[in-house]
């Protein structure tokens, strides 16, 4: 029995290592590449898995000092902050109304909102590009601020509905008996209890706005207004001049923090998906 258990453990680790390699290899390779000297990287015949020449920080320095990478980061961050504000301002009241005030048809509305989450940017970007142009927002980060809540608000609403439903009604009803208006009761009792959900919405919104590629390349043309995820692959390799070490450094520097953020809210996300949360 003991031998068998050990065999199972060993087999599991073989499988786990296989998957870890499969999933993380491109990033490990990117990290490894970032520190390679040009003469090392671009010599056919060098063993690619070794530093044949001493590793160098030069290309990381170039990324920060001589490219617009930091501009992209700042744009993404600014867009993220504003979109978080818009998402919270629309999703929180809507989710509360669906969870508490609208009864039967609220549930159906929650489903409709979830379905909207499935409408992809690649279907909407053409009309939206025209709408953006008519509003005079082309090539401005405000174009992205305008459209990104279409990606974030439906999912956030659906997520928050689940949160609000899990909070007992008695809590805010007691506060209302104590003399608070419904709004006062919600602010004082429900929102503090839903804080993990609100935090999840914030992180999720940031992650989704960072993730978008379609809208950013469709609406933005000058590199000073680009976001990270469109700017790095499109702007930093304009022409045929690839500086791979800097590009790979940029990829890893974005991938790691985003992955950490996702890990933070993953359990809540999965719980929602798995346990019939789709029903809204």
């Amino acid at each position: 029995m003991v031998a068998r258990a050990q065999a199972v453990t060993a087999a599991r680790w073989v499988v786990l290592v296989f998957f870890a390699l499969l999933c993380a290899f491109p990033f490990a390779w990117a990290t490894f590449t970032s520190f390679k000297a040009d003469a090392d990287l671009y010599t056919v015949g060098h063993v690619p898995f070794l530093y044949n020449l001493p590793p160098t920080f030069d290309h990381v320095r170039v990324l920060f000092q001589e490219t617009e990478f930091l501009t992209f980061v700042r744009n993404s961050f600014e867009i993220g902050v504003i979109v978080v504000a818009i998402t919270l301002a629309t999703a929180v009241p809507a989710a509360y109304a669906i969870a508490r005030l609208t009864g039967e048809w609220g549930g159906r509305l929650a489903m409709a909102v979830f379905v909207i989450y499935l409408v992809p940017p690649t279907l909407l970007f053409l009309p939206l590009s025209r709408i953006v142009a008519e509003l005079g927002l082309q090539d401005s980060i405000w174009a992205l601020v305008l459209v990104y809540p279409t990606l974030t608000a439906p999912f956030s609403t659906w997520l928050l509905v689940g949160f609000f439903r899990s909070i007992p009604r008695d809590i805010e009803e007691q506060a209302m008996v104590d003399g608070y208006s419904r709004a006062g009761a919600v602010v004082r009792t429900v929102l503090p209890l839903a804080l993990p959900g609100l935090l999840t919405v914030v992180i999720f919104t940031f992650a989704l706005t960072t993730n978008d590629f379609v809208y950013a390349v469709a609406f933005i043309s000058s590199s000073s207004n680009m976001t990270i995820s469109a700017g790095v692959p499109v702007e930093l390799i304009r022409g045929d001049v690839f500086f791979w070490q800097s590009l790979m450094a940029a990829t890893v520097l974005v991938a790691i923090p985003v992955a950490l953020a996702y890990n933070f809210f993953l359990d809540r996300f999965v719980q929602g998906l798995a346990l019939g949360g789709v029903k809204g």
Partner: protein
Amino acid sequence: MSEPVAHRTVVFDESPRVHHLLDRENVLGPVMLAPLLVYLVALVGVPLVLVFVYAFSDASTGSPTYSFVGLSTFQRTIADETFRTALRNTIVFTILSQVVVIVLATILGFVMTANFRGKWIVRFLVLLPWTTPIALSALAWLWMLDSLFSPFNWILGQLHVVAEGTPVAWLGENTLAVGSVVALQAWRTMPLAAVILMAGLTSIPPELNEQAAIDGAGFWRRLFDITFPLLTPIMMVAILFGIVATFTDMAAVYILTHGGPGDATQVLASWSFYTGIESGSLADGAAIGVFMFPVLLGVCLLMLRRARRAEVL
């Protein structure tokens, strides 16, 4: 539901009438929903209708007006060889990648449900393909599949599969390029499927398997008669997400192959983008995009059906 609660609340009220109205649930509900609904109608609903309007018109980015041309845009689209390739590729890429995902995600889901030391780091690593913005991971793949400096070339050279130092056109030869795009799509949608399956696995009551084991059912019997049937609904959710992600994605193709070599890896989303944005023909771009709609509609209906069933539980 709609019992009047106004009497409880007028304590520190400066505008009694407004407050009075907002304390009625059947008024407050719609008021709270309105901002979201107005926004979504304006920026999802209207554009969705406009996609179809454009597809029946001669709209282009150059001119502010357009007129209806009936089915002629569609006729042109369907006659176009590249469009047919893109349509076929979109379907083939989605099916192939999701078959791979079903197999790999099931295995990963099983090994990840166990408790073991170092689980968090394994989880972090296997989630990377899903959490990283697709445009950036595609860029990492672009470098990994470089025709001269790919590490795989070196390995193949050492194994004498190819002569050392010869370029391998991972992205420049039709079959290899198709394989690369499918692999990228499977790679990036697999972690979410595995995570969803994990949640499904942990929600199966252990007593079921224990009882079956007592009754004499072996491992494989339990796997095929208990675990898999119970997992099927949640597997479907996982795959539906994967289908939407793969079917509608343009970043992978745009960055990895630009649709090439030739148009060998062109998909609906990328071809719609090249036509609608880069060539400026909104009408043709929209007509291409419209062909994504039936699959999306199907996915939505399946999701809703599952949701309705879940509500019965």
